[in-house]
């Protein structure tokens, strides 16, 4: 089977070179080893181009916000602590979008499909009264096991609706969340800590994780430096999954998924089924979404049910796009940069702006930035 692998690698390389329009062409974490060493001037210019306008604007905005925070003697270490916590909390959900883009499914607005799997895992483990690492592990495991058939079905539907994946994904996600709302209300969970006190049936809208696995990962190896507390465990997990994902897309399997997207006909000639790789991408994305929400819940301290996951895909998509991804190209670096930028903005904006404006302008700003970014990506004419 070594024969088909070569043209496949060639296809992937061609694709990385083809992403000229503002996205960094090189591979994510490790420095590009194949390209010749660039001179200092061209390197600066390349950096500016790679950073792209949205990132520069958001980055500048973030610096201004921090400058105001410093100038008005706000609790800057506290802001940084909160930012770090939110970056760690949301990272996996953003990373979950990556396989879908690599696999040619576009922006995965169907992320709630994975999220409800993870939530089911949390609820089942809580209902069984599992605590600590066992509880967290069980939640993640159940979420993962559920997400595989769900992701497979999702992929099967997306394969029959090519060209409309984003719209179909959005509404599948909405339908899944509203369908699960009925499930949460009717499902036979009887743990009195989870169900409404009145009537004894129907899960509460938010379930507290205190006493179960509240901030378990956040506290793992956590330390404080210069007044900033670092949620080491969650950050390490995020970093670990980023590394794994980056590595995965360098294995033959991962390259196959990306190559099939870059050139379906070529891939077919090489013995790769585009249908199969798309399904694999959907499963990977859904599974990471399920894990992502379990990590999110332990860090947040609450499991949010019913309509809470309805719009969760949109901020995650905005993170990835702010990081520099496009509808058809994304790297792990985009995930990290985007999560850091967008989550920091969201954290810092509220306390800083509330000094100037009454009322929560940060929520409005989030709506504008998030959806403006998505719309920009959707209407962008990608160079080929």
């Amino acid at each position: 089977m070594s024969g088909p692998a070569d043209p496949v690698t060639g296809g992937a390389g061609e694709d990385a070179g083809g992403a000229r329009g503002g996205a960094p062409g090189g591979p994510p974490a490790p420095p590009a080893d194949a390209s010749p060493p660039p001179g200092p001037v061209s390197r600066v210019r390349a950096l500016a181009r790679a950073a792209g306008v949205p990132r520069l604007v958001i980055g500048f905005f973030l610096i201004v916000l921090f400058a105001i925070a410093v100038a008005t003697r706000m609790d800057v270490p506290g802001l940084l602590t909160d930012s770090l916590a939110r970056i760690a909390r949301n990272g996996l959900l953003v990373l979950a979008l990556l396989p879908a883009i690599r696999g040619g499914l576009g922006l995965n607005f169907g992320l709630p499909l994975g999220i409800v799997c993870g939530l089911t895992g949390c609820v089942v483990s809580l209902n069984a009264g599992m605590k600590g690492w066992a509880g967290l592990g069980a939640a993640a495991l159940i979420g993962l096991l559920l997400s595989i058939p769900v992701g497979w079905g999702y992929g099967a539907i997306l394969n029959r609706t090519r060209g409309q994946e984003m719209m179909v994904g959005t509404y599948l996600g909405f339908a899944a969340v509203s369908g699960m709302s009925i499930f949460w209300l009717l499902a036979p969970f009887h743990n009195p800590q989870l169900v409404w006190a009145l009537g004894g049936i129907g899960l509460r809208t938010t379930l507290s994780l205190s006493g179960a696995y509240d901030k378990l990962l956040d506290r793992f190896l956590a330390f404080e430096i210069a007044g900033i507390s670092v949620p080491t465990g969650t950050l390490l997990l995020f970093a670990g999954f980023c590394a794994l994902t980056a590595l995965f897309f360098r294995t033959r399997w991962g390259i196959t998924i990306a190559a099939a997207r870059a050139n379906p006909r070529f891939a077919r000639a090489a013995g790769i089924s585009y249908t199969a790789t798309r399904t694999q991408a959907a499963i990977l994305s859904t599974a990471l979404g399920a894990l992502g929400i379990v990590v999110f819940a332990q860090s947040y301290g609450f499991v949010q049910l019913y309509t809470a996951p309805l719009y969760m895909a949109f901020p995650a998509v905005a993170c990835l796009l702010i990081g520099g991804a496009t509808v058809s190209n994304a790297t792990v670096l985009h995930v990290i940069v985007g999560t850091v930028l967008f989550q920091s903005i969201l954290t810092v904006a509220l306390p800083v702006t509330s000094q100037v404006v009454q009322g929560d302008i940060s929520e409005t700003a989030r709506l504008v930035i998030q959806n403006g970014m998505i719309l920009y990506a959707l209407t962008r004419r990608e160079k080929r």
Partner: protein
Amino acid sequence: MSLASRARAGAAHHSVPILFATLCLAGALVAHIKPSFLASEMLLRFSRNGLLVLSLLVPILAGLGLNFGIVIGAMAGQIAAILVVYWGGSGIGGLGAAALLATPIAIVFGLATGMIFNRAKGREMVSGLIAGFLANGLYQIVFLFMIGSIIPFHSPSMVLPQGYGLRNTVDLTSIQYAMDDLVPLKVAIEGSAVRVPVATLALIGLFGIFNLWFLRTKLGQELRAMGQDPHVAAIAGIPVERNRLIATILSTVLAAWGQLLFLQNLGTLNTYNSHEQVGMFSIAALLVSGATVTRATVPQAFLGTILFHTLFVVSPLAGKALAGDAQIGEYFRVFVAYGVITAALVLHAWRKERE
């Protein structure tokens, strides 16, 4: 063809509305809903939503799909309503002024939406959805933060106590029932007087006729040709991009007027959420009739509005009767709305993929 097989073919063709009619009927029977109650509710809801659902038809004809951007049109209607109430307009004159004022705003909004659609060909629906979200954010910036601070606006009853930002609800009693009671008619059903909004229904009927007439115009035929095959239409000399803009503008203006009809009946404006669900509910209503992403007719718009809103009224009551909990019915109707849209999108894309 025998009568039985013809009936079977007809049933298969209309399976979606038949399914929903059955669901409505079953729910009504379970919850023991009186036909008179249902009839008066339908009269109300049809007159509120009919025009909004009609506003979806032209973009479907032009091949733009379901216009999730009508939310933006609804916002134009609301902006006009807020301004007219602020300037002290009332009655049918006030409503007419609001409709006049809404038109240029909706034209500008529709033009912007149409330009987005032209840049996002093949992704119009998801772009329209996101454009609606974005417009919602911009709307909040204007009405929650700029009104009273940057934009001069002196009305203590409308502005929040902090001095800027509109209150969560705007009282529209000055224009309430302006259209509904233009031709006052009340019918006594089982002892209670039910308002029959003759003028509103006539107006909705008129727009239905307008839509039918529009199909026969040159522009209507061009849009139909574009909907069938944009490439062939472009080669035939039809200005595709321009016509797509016109179709979007038309839809946005109709949605603005539709939202005004909705608001004049309701009598209050939820400043920050009245428009949010407009797109989803109007689209679900249209699809319940068996309309698709590429084909929808005026009768389907009317039938769908009635069926969907029957389900809307019935399902919480049925949920309460069945499980003792109205909440289940509420989740169920939201699930139906999303589910119907999902099914229509999947079927549409599936069919397109097979071609």
